[in-house]
């Protein structure tokens, strides 16, 4: 079976993001970019399914600028077999990303699409579910365990009350949670090998998909600042402050 993995390039999780002075967005100039952490987990899971003999081919796909090539090369170094870059200069909304991914799915006919549960820039948590609905597929979102057998994916999901297990008919959408696996590091020989793996480029305009934005970002601001706190020296002082100053206990 073929697995398609969708990966997004985002501002690195360790960067302290700064809002631009003109409130139009956040600073992206000279900021470290990386593969979205949830997408790394998706790549790792796909590669493990291949190593177990469950999957035959792993295809990584990213939609974005030419620089997304870097993230795709990382995916190839981690064990994906080939990659597809759908080039777009504009930042796409999740619905548009899902529509583009649908065209790729229709062409490649994978039996599973693995996505991150959420991109850590927009914090949308939408694309996988949207793709599932557009394709008419079932989904196992926020997965912390995936087992494939008899044309079904048994998925353990992290839900608010604990864990839920679903059996999802394939082809299926799976979105990854943090505890699904711990992604490996790409070895130097694998990074070298990745340079020779196929990476196809498509222009978004050629796909015939409506990707026009549906929303406008009117402004981007800093969150309200908290007022400066104090240090207390002892437990007694802490209890006194909570009782008599903050009045919360």
């Amino acid at each position, binding site marked *: 079976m073929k697995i398609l993995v969708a990966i997004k390039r985002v501002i690195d999780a360790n960067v302290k993001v700064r809002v631009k002075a003109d409130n139009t967005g956040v600073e992206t100039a000279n900021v470290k970019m990386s593969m979205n952490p949830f997408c790394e987990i998706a790549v790792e899971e796909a590669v493990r399914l291949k190593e177990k003999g469950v999957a035959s081919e792993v295809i990584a796909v990213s939609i974005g600028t030419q620089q997304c090539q870097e993230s795709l090369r990382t995916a190839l170094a981690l064990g994906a077999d080939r990659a597809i870059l759908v080039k777009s200069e504009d930042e796409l909304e999740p*619905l548009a990303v899902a529509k583009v991914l649908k065209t790729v799915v229709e062409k490649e006919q994978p039996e599973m699409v693995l996505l991150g549960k959420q991109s850590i820039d927009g914090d949308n948590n939408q694309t996988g579910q*949207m793709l599932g609905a557009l394709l008419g597929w079932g989904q196992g*979102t926020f997965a912390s365990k995936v087992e494939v057998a008899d044309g079904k994916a048994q998925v353990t999901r992290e839900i608010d009350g*604990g864990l839920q297990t679903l059996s999802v008919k394939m082809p299926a959408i799976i979105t990854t949670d943090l505890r699904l696996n711990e992604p490996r590091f790409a070895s130097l020989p694998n990074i070298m090998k990745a340079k020779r793996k196929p990476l196809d480029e498509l222009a978004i305009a050629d796909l015939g998909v409506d990707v026009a*934005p*549906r929303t406008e970002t009117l402004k981007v601001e800093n969150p309200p600042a908290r007022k400066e706190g104090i240090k207390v020296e002892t*437990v007694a002082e802490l209890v006194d402050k909570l009782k008599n100053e903050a009045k919360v206990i």
Partner: protein
Amino acid sequence: MATLIIAEHNNSQLQAATFNTIAAAKQLSGETVVLVAGHNCQSVADEAAKAEGVDKVLLAEAEHYAHLLAEDLDKLVVEQAENFTHILAPATTFGKNIAPRIAALLDVQQISDIIAIEGDDTFKRPVYAGNAIATVKSNDNKKVITVRATAFDALSHEGGSASVESIGTTEHGALVDYVGEELTESERPELTSAKVIVSGGRGMGSGENFAMLEQLADKLGAAVGASRAAVDAGFVPNDYQVGQTGKIVAPELYIAVGISGAIQHLAGMKDSKVIVAINKDEEAPIFQVADYGLVADLFKVIPELIESL
């Protein structure tokens, strides 16, 4: 104009976040209608009908709705959609799972996790783990929205007298079968609605040591939470995790014990009214958001704290 709220429930009771979602809906123009889809869930519909602010309840009962699977409820909601300008769900794992499917079927770009309503088409939402707040205007003719519960104070659970109307159901899509659930049983208040939360991090050192925090929580009538590191280390179950990718909480009092205060953790708790940090490293970033910081070894001061309450 009218708003449809997708109720989250367990077939006997509404989940708390549904009430916060109703409160958000009251800031929009038009009627507020709650959809209760489930199995043997009349009591939930009756509960919703009594809630302040609800104008009408739609009840859809079918065996295959019992587990509120997104692949079945999405079509049901889409069938009702023509009567509504806004479709709201709580930004819980339930709402996050289903709302994007509805949005995609309606060809709408969803607005996730709103924290404020500026008008019928304009909303505020946190991005970059809460490092920035975006004001977003939707140009779609319908809005599909998930609501961050902590940003909207729930209205009263009593006082309403809405009518309950049974509606037709959709067929079982059979894309997904429910296998089972392992829910964390606890006598303590639920994390997202608790007034006081005691959270532990990697500094706790082990799952056994969390017993200390449980004792403290018992004294305070608090819920127990955790950082991702504590969950990953297996100290506590996954549903304890507070943060960007865990639960968003905003209690009256949040006590962070042995938690460094990574931005992803702060994203889930920095709207708490009063924050206490206990950490032996005075440079720990958690102190930047703490109202009261105590630089100390937790193994020394937590027993003292339990003792003095």
